[in-house]
């Protein structure tokens, strides 16, 4: 309680302080705690995550991510409606990513350059590296931010659908297994796609080029996969044809899901190779992260 409103004899002794005056109290030293690399890592990851969604940025930075997230959510909402009206499942949880693949691909292409390109273009990177962090902290903080953003994009529609299913009270109970499998596979999608997107985007300080590079990666892999599958199928070489599917990053993860959780494939009767797609996925992720480190190695062009 300030107690100066009642200006009694005691209060009158004090000189009234005019409000709105800035008093220069001179330079103050900081004697408090200085936290370590973990704190810096969390700071950078959170800052980057806000950047991906355009939070605390100008309004136009929010348009793309939220538009894409809305698009991603739409089929889930429709599916809940279908379940409510017809007591039928429109989309299986485990098929969601393969069906919607273009949407997360656009999100990856439009948002991953945002994480790395401005730091290169506006040369903020040397400032980060003059802080008490390692290059690895920077790379993994960016990767974490993008993976969390991607996972949010994937998990929210699945969860909306699941909550809808619980509320609708479908005959035969909720598909808990399908939901958990899809949520777990979402982690693989998020990590793998983020690593690839970030690695591709980090090679250019130009955001537009980064968007083009990541888009080209998706278009190329999905097109090559489709063409090869078609050609090999027409030659009746079905064994080889199913392998061609794995060139598409979304189908590669789908193959892993199908093996890990014993889920029926959303595209073909069966994916080949048992655990081989998982090995391929881990190798491809490692390659992308390796590329990132190569990009940011000390003495590299920044």
């Amino acid at each position: 309680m300030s107690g100066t409103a009642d200006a009694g004899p005691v209060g009158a002794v004090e000189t009234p302080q005019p409000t709105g005056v800035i008093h220069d109290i001179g330079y103050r030293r900081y004697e408090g705690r200085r936290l370590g690399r973990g704190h810096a890592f969390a700071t950078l990851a959170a800052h980057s995550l806000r950047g991906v969604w355009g939070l605390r940025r100008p309004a136009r930075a929010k348009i793309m991510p939220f538009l894409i997230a809305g698009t991603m959510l739409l089929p889930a909402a429709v599916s809940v409606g279908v379940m409510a009206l017809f007591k039928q499942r429109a989309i299986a949880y485990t098929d969601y990513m393969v069906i919607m693949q273009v949407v997360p691909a656009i999100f990856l292409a439009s948002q991953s350059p945002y994480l790395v390109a401005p730091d290169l273009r506006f040369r903020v990177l040397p400032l980060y590296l003059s802080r008490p962090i390692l290059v690895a902290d920077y790379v993994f903080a960016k990767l974490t931010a993008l993976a969390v953003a991607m996972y949010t994009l994937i998990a929210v529609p699945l969860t909306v659908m699941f909550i809808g299913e619980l509320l609708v009270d479908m005959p035969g109970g909720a598909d808990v297994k399908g939901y958990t499998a899809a949520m777990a596979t979402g982690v693989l999608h998020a990590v793998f796609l983020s690593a690839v997107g970030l690695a591709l985007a980090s090679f250019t300080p130009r955001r537009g080029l980064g968007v083009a590079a990541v888009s080209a990666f998706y278009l190329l892999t999905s097109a090559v996969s489709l063409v090869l599958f078609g050609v090999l199928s027409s030659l009746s070489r079905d064994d080889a044809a199913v392998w061609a599917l794995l060139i598409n990053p979304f189908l590669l993860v789908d193959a892993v899901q199908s093996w890990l959780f014993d889920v029926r494939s959303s595209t073909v009767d069966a994916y080949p190779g048992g655990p081989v797609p998982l090995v391929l996925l881990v190798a491809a992720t490692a390659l992308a992260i390796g590329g990132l480190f190569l990009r940011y190695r000390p003495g590299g062009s920044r």
Partner: protein
Amino acid sequence: MTILATEGLTMRFPRVTALDRLTVTAGPGVTGLVGANGAGKSTLIKILLGLLRPTEGRAEVLGMDSSARSLEIRRLVGYMPEHECLPPDISATEFVIHMARMSGLPGTAARERAADTLRHVGLYEERYRPIGGYSTGMRQRVKLAQALVHDPRVVFLDEPTNGLDPQGRDDMLALIRRVGVEFGISVVVTSHLLGELERICDHVIVIDGGRLLRSSAITEFTQATRTITVEVEDGQDALLVRLAAAGESAVRHGRLLTVEARSEATYDAVRDAVADLELSLVRLEQGRQRIEDVFRDETGAELEEVR
């Protein structure tokens, strides 16, 4: 206490030797690091921050080895790069808070220190607007603020007056002097203009071609730059003749005249000459010579030898 010390420091890049067996020390206070563009100033700072590994030799900051203990060094050091380094889409406040946290300050302390530091460097209401709309002077202030926000023991300022107009330069130099004297933070500041550093430094280190040319207290330098730069709109030749008649030695460089300041009387002589000839005086200031010019006169022979 030494702020920085190097011993036989050599940095070779594939095409160029940036530092060549540089051995130098600097104590507390404001230290100027002077050299022409490409003399190795920025390379030296990057080695001190542990961002580059020297080819040979060693460097220490606050008594810690720059290669082995770079994280500890970076915790206690601030760095203002020569180049642009600010993201355009966030506000100065948010950026400086972010950088404070990156240096290890907890959230609340980071916000308090960011507000304090931005006020100290002279950014007020505009600090809430995105940096993209700032003038060069404001950007330089934000760059300085992010170097000071975590209350470092030493700051490395790389060409802080680059791109600023004369008024902006004066403000920035005054600010740097305040950082060194009032804030009690040791400053290592680079420039290619000796005249500029003369005003704010206690000690000056001159490097050229990656080698130490000279390291001494500022008082020993003052003789070297006793010149006055005079800019008049026209009538430079008439002024030249007039000054020569008054016994002053002046040289013409295009629109500018450089007059050797023998004593205080020289300033009066210039003033009177300009007034008598009724010339339009644009600028009258203490010589801001490039470092090469200064040393051509004083240590010309030495410079030739080094090359």
